[in-house]
């Protein structure tokens, strides 16, 4: 049982790296970026192709490049003023995810993409913990702490927080809101890319994993009933834990439905107050 719990937390550490960027983009721009899964998959595919030591660097760069494109599309909607609500942008990020999935399918085919995991394991009581899993958790925690520090103390982080509280207010005090939002997309794509690299090392991925990762990111971002990077981080750990326990106790295959079922349960139960949402109907 202890091993199942630890494996869940190790898996959740990867999911947290999908959930945190989705949550940061959500609070900063009022948009749910459905492409989060695509950033992760492109980084994972690139790292699988290039291997170590340069694969992770190129993978994160590729993810950030995709973040630039999404950010540009986001700015395009605002520049053209054709947007009446956030839904068209969300649909555009959905379309972008499909585009990236298809491009990956064309280039690498349907094969599972993975990078050799870090070998070794450590015994802890009756459980055996993989070094890869512990590396996932450690890197995830370090990134979360780094993000928290950036948001708390750096000028760019303070601007992002100001945009999250009120983009109109931020604009009135001279903060370049659009540039800050664009940078948010790029930074978050990079974090998601790191999650994709860990996923390539731990569980592998195919071109179609982008949609799965996005579903996981959203369920992790809402499962604790609050928006924000920290709830999203712990939400990721929770979803990983729930999936790990489900894999053990539910019939084969049903664990894949756990993130989706959590989304339905949490949102339909009204646990997340509607005021916490963006894009509410007028």
């Amino acid at each position, binding site marked *: 049982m202890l091993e199942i719990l630890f494996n869940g937390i190790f898996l959740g550490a990867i999911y947290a790296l999908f959930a945190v960027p989705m949550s940061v983009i959500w609070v900063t721009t009022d948009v749910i970026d459905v492409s989060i899964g695509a950033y992760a998959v492109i980084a994972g595919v690139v790292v699988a192709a290039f291997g170590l030591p340069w694969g992770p660097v190129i993978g994160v760069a590729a993810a950030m490049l995709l973040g630039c494109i999404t950010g540009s599309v986001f700015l395009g909607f605002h520049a053209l003023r054709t947007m009446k609500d956030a839904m068209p942008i969300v649909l555009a990020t959905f379309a*972008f995810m499909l585009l990236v999935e298809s491009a990956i399918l064309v280039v690498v085919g349907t094969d599972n993409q993975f990078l050799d995991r870090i070998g070794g394991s450590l015994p802890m009581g009756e459980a055996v913990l993989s070094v890869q899993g512990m590396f996932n958790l450690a890197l995830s925690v370090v990134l979360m702490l780094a993000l928290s520090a950036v948001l708390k103390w750096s000028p760019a982080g303070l601007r992002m927080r100001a945009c999250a509280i009120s983009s109109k207010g931020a604009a009135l005090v001279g903060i370049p809101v659009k540039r800050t939002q664009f940078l948010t997309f790029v930074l978050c794509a990079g974090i998601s890319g790191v999650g994709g690299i860990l996923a390539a090392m731990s569980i592998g991925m195919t071109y179609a994993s982008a*949609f799965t990762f996005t579903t996981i990111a959203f369920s992790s971002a809402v499962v604790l009933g609050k928006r924000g990077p920290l709830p999203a981080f712990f939400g990721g750990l929770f979803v990983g834990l729930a999936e790990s326990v489900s894999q053990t106790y539910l*019939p084969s*295959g049903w664990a894949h439905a756990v993130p989706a079922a959590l989304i339905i349960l949490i*949102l*339909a139960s009204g646990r997340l107050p*509607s005021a916490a949402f963006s894009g509410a109907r007028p």
Partner: protein
Amino acid sequence: MSGAMSKWGGSVGVLVVAFAVATVLGQFRGSVYTTSTTIGIYALLALPLGLLYGQGGTVSLAQGAFAAIGGYTTAILSTRYGLPPMLSLIPAVLIPAVVAFLIAKPILRLPELSLALVTLSIGTVVEVALQRGGDFTGSFIGINGIPTLPFIGNSRIGSHFAVWAIVLLVVIAYVNFMSSLRGRALNAIRTDHLLAQAMGVNVAFDLAMLFSITAGVAGLGGWFYAHTLGYVAPDSLSIALSANVLFMVVVGGRKSVLGPIVGAIFFTLASDLLPGTESQGIFFGAVLILVLLFSPDGLLTLHPLAWLRGRKSGSPPPAKAGDNGAARPAGALQ
């Protein structure tokens, strides 16, 4: 009669002309009927989503799931219990409609972004349930040997006629619904929930009914699909189908009755004509982004020259008769 003609005469006229052209072309090349039937099935799924999203302001990505419930219901009843297709039509429509009505209350109060993801999650759960349903759902393989529809059999032209007759009926029902009291209430809901409530509209019930109707029509599409192809599987009516249907609605035009049908035609023809199924997602993804950027109300409302003029003068493009402009009364269709 003249009132009815003025209401749906334009839409029905365009459809009948398109149908006649396809019928004539099919005489020279039989595959036209197969393509036309596919477009018709997609139109049956896209039309109700157009009603829900375009007129009700509610996005659903569960159309594929409801079509799957309809398709599997008729497949199980007709292959396992020997129920004739025309009888299994009733549960194939009713079961998704009832399921949708039951889940509508807790989910339809959600804002549209979250609602879209919840409906997507419903699709995921339904897909996993179908894949893991064992002998009951045929698991990953699905269900074979579904009987064909009476009077149609394996005739391609018969399927072509049947599906477009159903689409025509759905279009007439759509237009009539939107010009009815309930349709106007729906437009009021889309415009302002609170105002609609203040004016006596039962927002929760009306949205639940609409969600239920759209699920029922999707179930009808699934029923027709199952009896035309003789086969259903989790992959055939999946989340990808829901995404494709949303593509059709957005690209064609969500606020217009013909928009979803135009989207279905565009999607089917592009799928047939584009080389390599792997790379089609690049094309469709790019098209969807461009349409959302430059013509958010779909291709049917695209006026490139007016848009360019609007950009040059720094003001929005002028509203024309037929645009979804402010001059258009609530409940009116393009």
